[in-house]
């Protein structure tokens, strides 16, 4: 077991986040341009006298300022032959009036005819009905209508393009949440982080190779504490060695962790020798410092739910497994409260992306992150037979 001094001996691989179906559809939507933003409805009106624009904008700005969640909206847009201005958002109390006018404000399509399917909806109201109080000189405003606008700011360039086709919006790049396409590398993780992930998977891969050479199914699973960067357990498939169809690598790794904490259910599981693990950790320790943000994340995950006081299980740990775990193992990892699972190649009955997406299932009480594709080619070469 030589340390992976030269990472280039592996085929190139990509870290691919395994998303929920909803997130995946959103991403697909970006690619094909079919993202529909969350919408809210506004009263708007054409500006019939362009000389009045700045006066009207200012008056509306003072009397009907946009709330902090609406500040991405530009007040005025140019639409075909004229300009249109947002008067104010439609409030719950407006709905009665609108329903009397046979308008259902929740079913509005958007405005500008040339770039949207629907049209802005006409209403039988006057500007005076909408801007009550009479403080604003309404000269220069035409017949009001209803328009749907994005209800939140765009989070990335792709969203911004879609948002802008509905109503002009401002976009502050610095406010965006990390985008999968941006960041330090193609996968949104730094080169250093990718190296770290590859090294940990390399441990799982080595274990899987040994396992296969001893007649096992060639699967390895490694548990890492991201706080210290230490490898805590290295499990391998024991279904054949122990004649138990449930002793998949992940189940073994989970029990090895329990054994270290004074528990455990299975006796005589062969693991990587303690000395070996220490050697690995020494090498790893030289290379990397625990990452501050990981530490924060783990604290956070401990604090936020009711089972937080459980001092054992795998709370906050990362698991590196050569193949996508089956439904039993995936749920076992969920019961054990892991924070992230990295796997090499997909399995046809896999439960972290292929058949189920247990890690982001809305019905369950814990979620974790899953990534696939780590040292994928090397991991796939070890897969033997059909049965997980």
């Amino acid at each position, binding site marked *: 077991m030589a340390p992976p001094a030269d990472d280039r001996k592996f085929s190139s691989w990509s870290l691919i986040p395994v998303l929920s179906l909803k997130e995946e559809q959103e991403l697909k939507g970006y690619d094909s341009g079919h993202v529909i933003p969350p919408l809210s409805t506004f009263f708007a009106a054409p500006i019939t006298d362009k000389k009045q624009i700045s006066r009207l904008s200012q008056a509306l700005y003072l009397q009907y300022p946009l709330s902090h969640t609406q500040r991405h909206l530009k007040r005025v847009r140019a639409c075909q032959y004229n300009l249109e201005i947002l008067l104010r958002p439609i409030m719950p109390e407006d709905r009665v009036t609108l329903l009397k006018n046979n308008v259902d404000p929740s079913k509005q399509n958007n405005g500008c005819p040339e770039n949207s399917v629907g049209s802005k909806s006409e209403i039988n109201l006057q500007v005076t009905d909408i801007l009550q109080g009479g403080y604003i000189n309404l000269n220069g405003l035409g017949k009001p209508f209803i328009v749907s606008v994005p209800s939140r700011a765009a989070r990335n360039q792709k969203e911004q393009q879609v948002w802008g086709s509905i109503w002009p919006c401002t976009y502050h790049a610095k406010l965006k949440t990390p985008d999968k396409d941006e960041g330090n590398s193609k996968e949104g993780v730094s080169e250093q982080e990718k190296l770290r992930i590859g090294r940990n998977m390399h441990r799982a891969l080595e274990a899987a190779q040994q396992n296969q050479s001893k007649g096992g199914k060639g699967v390895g699973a490694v548990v890492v504490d991201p706080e210290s960067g230490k490898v805590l357990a290295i499990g391998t498939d024991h279904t054949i060695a122990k004649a138990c169809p449930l002793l998949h690598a992940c189940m073994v790794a989970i029990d090895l962790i329990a054994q270290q904490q004074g528990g455990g*259910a299975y006796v005589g599981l062969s693991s990587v020798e303690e000395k070996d693990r220490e050697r690995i950790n020494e090498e790893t320790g030289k290379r990397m410092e625990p990452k501050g943000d990981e530490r924060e994340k783990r604290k956070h995950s401990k604090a936020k739910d009711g*089972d937080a*006081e459980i001092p054992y299980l795998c709370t906050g740990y990362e698991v590196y497994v050569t193949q996508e775990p*089956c439904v*039993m193992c995936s749920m076992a990892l969920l019961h054990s409260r892991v924070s992230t699972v990295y796997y090499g190649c997909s399995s046809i009955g896999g439960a972290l992306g292929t058949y189920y997406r247990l890690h982001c299932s809305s019905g369950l009480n814990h979620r974790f992150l899953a990534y696939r594709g780590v040292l994928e080619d090397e991991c796939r070469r070890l897969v033997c037979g059909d049965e997980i």
Partner: protein
Amino acid sequence: MEPPEMTEEMKNWMDKAFQMAQDALDNGEVPVGCLMVHDNQIVGRGRNEVNETKNATRHAEMVATDQVIDWCKKNGKGSKEVFEDTILYVTVEPCIMCAGALRLLRIPLVVYGCCNERFGGCGSVLNVAENSIPSTGTPFKCIPGYKAEKAVEMLKTFYKQENPNAPRSKVRKKE
């Protein structure tokens, strides 16, 4: 209401599983009991052992499975053949993990009491029992609902009993 498919024999086994659950409850453990019955005899039984083992996967069904494997070794039987002809009787619907395990073991039938709303793998959260998941053992049949209210009542009693002022290190029991 009792499920119509239940034979008298099945009801007897379920009542035994309920006795185990009651026993667990009396001893401060999660009131879930399970039996694995092969060839008219109990070849495995189990209750939740998450606390003792510090292993979140030690649900009653997993514990019983290991007993069946031991029984097979002692009796010189192949565990594959035994599991394929074994019925699981359990007071609460198996969770997603256990349902996955039962598929891998190729257990043909599971008789259970109440549903497991949080983690159930036989229809409550996912239907691991019936879905056609490739390369993951075989689907199995379920007969749910025998004394479901009783099973729920026992769980409720257990969670009520749990002292909210227990030391922080005390593990929350789960199934």
